[in-house]
């Protein structure tokens, strides 16, 4: 009896401590129920949605880390477009070219992340300006590389990472990859010293430095991780569409920021986490799917993103002020 009471108490405590995350998951469940009732959502349909949301989910993890560090990464969309073009141009639809495409795209994305991080740490340029400049530079590199006319397509067997379903067609591979990456990063963020260092650096840079954390290294690694995850998202997205598409990543920067905002991560760093982001991504994706279903054009999605960001950030600011 006593044990049960204790456990109930700890659950209540957990909910109180993580009220934003709990709220977000409740909102998600509510939206899913509304969907299930009004749009007759079957589990299969839902799994397919998760499959399509996976790229956004993977890159939003990186965006969350940048926001936790007190920065932001506006170059993720450009990294996705870059990855898409390079992957298609090197694969040329041939399975034998997959390794070289992977090496090139991952290598370049890590390089972009490294430059972002070093510019932010060493030159002390504000994160959003560094990454904004970086996104323009990457866009330029992409255009010069393709000379304005992209070529190639994705190798057939590589498309499996987005198209294939495992276990007797019951679980999509993309969703599995998303959940595995999310689980690994969640473990790192919540259970290792590296994760604590990220929270400490974002929460109070000066104090973190004085307590012996190499904040520069942590920040650089955070931006590299964000860029790498954007590259993974780009690869998965490329596998999904199978061809090159210029400006493929453009909407993803704002989408990921909106997803992170909904998940309750604040912009002053050190508060929030990737638990909320997981729900935030699904909420964004469900809202956009719903809009597609009722024939709202692309413009409506963009408009709704802006409104969502403003509402969620102001709500977060109010909640964190009250605390």
């Amino acid at each position, binding site marked *: 009896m006593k044990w049960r009471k204790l456990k109930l108490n700890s659950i209540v405590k957990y909910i109180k401590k993580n009220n934003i995350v709990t709220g977000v998951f409740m909102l998600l469940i509510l939206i899913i129920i509304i969907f299930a009732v009004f749009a007759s959502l079957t589990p299969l349909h839902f799994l397919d949605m998760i499959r399509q949301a996976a790229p956004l989910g993977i890159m939003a993890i990186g965006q969350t880390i940048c926001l936790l560090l007190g920065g*932001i990464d506006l170059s993720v969309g450009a990294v996705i477009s870059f990855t898409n073009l390079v992957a298609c141009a090197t694969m040329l639809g041939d399975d034998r070219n997959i390794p070289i495409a992977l090496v090139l795209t991952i290598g370049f994305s890590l390089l972009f992340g490294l430059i972002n991080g070093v*510019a932010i740490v060493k*030159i*002390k*340029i*504000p994160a*959003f*300006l*560094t990454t*904004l*400049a*970086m996104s*323009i*530079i990457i*866009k*330029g*590199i992409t*255009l*010069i590389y393709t*000379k*304005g006319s992209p070529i190639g397509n994705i190798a057939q067997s590589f498309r499996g990472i987005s198209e294939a379903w495992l276990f007797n067609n019951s679980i999509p591979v993309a969703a599995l990859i998303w959940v595995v990456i999310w689980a690994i990063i969640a473990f790192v963020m919540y259970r290792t010293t590296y994760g604590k260092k990220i929270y400490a650096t974002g929460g109070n840079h000066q104090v973190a430095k004085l307590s012996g954390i190499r904040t520069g290294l942590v920040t650089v690694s955070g931006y590299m991780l964000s860029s790498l995850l954007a590259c993974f998202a780009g690869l998965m997205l490329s596998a999904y569409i199978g061809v090159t598409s210029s400006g493929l990543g453009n909407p993803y920067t*704002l989408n990921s*920021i909106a997803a992170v905002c909904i998940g309750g991560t604040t*912009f002053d760093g050190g508060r929030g986490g990737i638990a909320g982001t997981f729900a935030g991504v699904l909420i964004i994706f469900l809202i956009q799917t719903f809009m597609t279903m009722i024939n709202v*054009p*692309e*413009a*409506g*999605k*963009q*408009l*709704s*993103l*802006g*409104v969502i*960001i*403003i509402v969620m*950030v*102001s709500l977060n*600011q*109010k909640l964190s*002020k009250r605390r």
Partner: protein
Amino acid sequence: MFQGSFKKHLKLAFPAYIILVLILIIASASNQDFRTSTNFSNIVAQSSVLAIVAIGQTLILLIGGIDLSNGAVLSISTVVMAQISYASTGSMWFAIVLALIIGCGVGAMNGFGIMKLNIPPMIMTLASGSIVTGIALFIQSSPGGKINLELMKFVTKKFPPFNTLGVITIILYIIFTFILVATKWGRNLYAVGGNAISAKKSGISVFKTYMSTYMVAGTLAAFGGILLSARLFSGDPVIGENYAMDTITAVILGGTMLTGGEGGIIGTLAGVFIVAMIGNVLNMLEIFPYYQYIIKGLILVTALLVKVVDKEKLKSLVLPKSRHEVEEA
């Protein structure tokens, strides 16, 4: 105090003018097409819209904010012009007033979100930019439409080496230099940007300053859109994509500090010409035009880099000396 800050701005703006002159010399030495009056008037026409939008960005950076929504406001203003202005003179004026009101309204929304809802300026303007782009795409999903012919004739009128656009830009720069130097509102901008808390204590309404600055900047962006649509004779819902980045680059090149409180629009003018000429110069040097994206990004980073290095140099120059003075005294 204020006159000193204006002099300081001129000093900060000086490097931008040197770079501008160097670019002009190199470009005209290497290509004779560059030094024609037609090309000059082209450059003026190309850079004037950017110059007008950059005034607003300068004011906002002066109070310590940032505006990433100006490109979206510019785009929606071209779309409004393309949809409404063609029919008659009356509809032209209606379209102009409507575009300016939209710009002003977006600015008010930005100011309100930043001050009352506590949203960081970067996020607020990113979000409002997304909203405005969404509305612009609703109105018109692809480039097109027609602009009132009289307006187009007026805006594109040329009297080499100048044109209407250049004259409007120069008038606006004179007016806003006067406002920044000689009016109370202009002084308030520097005070709020320098130190918002002490500005509040000395009786300046920070809320009103933010609101008015963002509203003025929004209106200027909309005005830039009106001129751009008349120059191109069409509207385009995403034409302003790169304006946020370009104006920030121009303003920072011109010696305005990101942290607020220092700078002005005289330097911005040189920064605008540098940014706007990159494409033109690359064309003249027969370099693949897409390199301009990389060059623009590098210019922004370099401008910020130079400023940080300068600041530290200044500190190391000033500190030992003052310490020495303190010890002597």
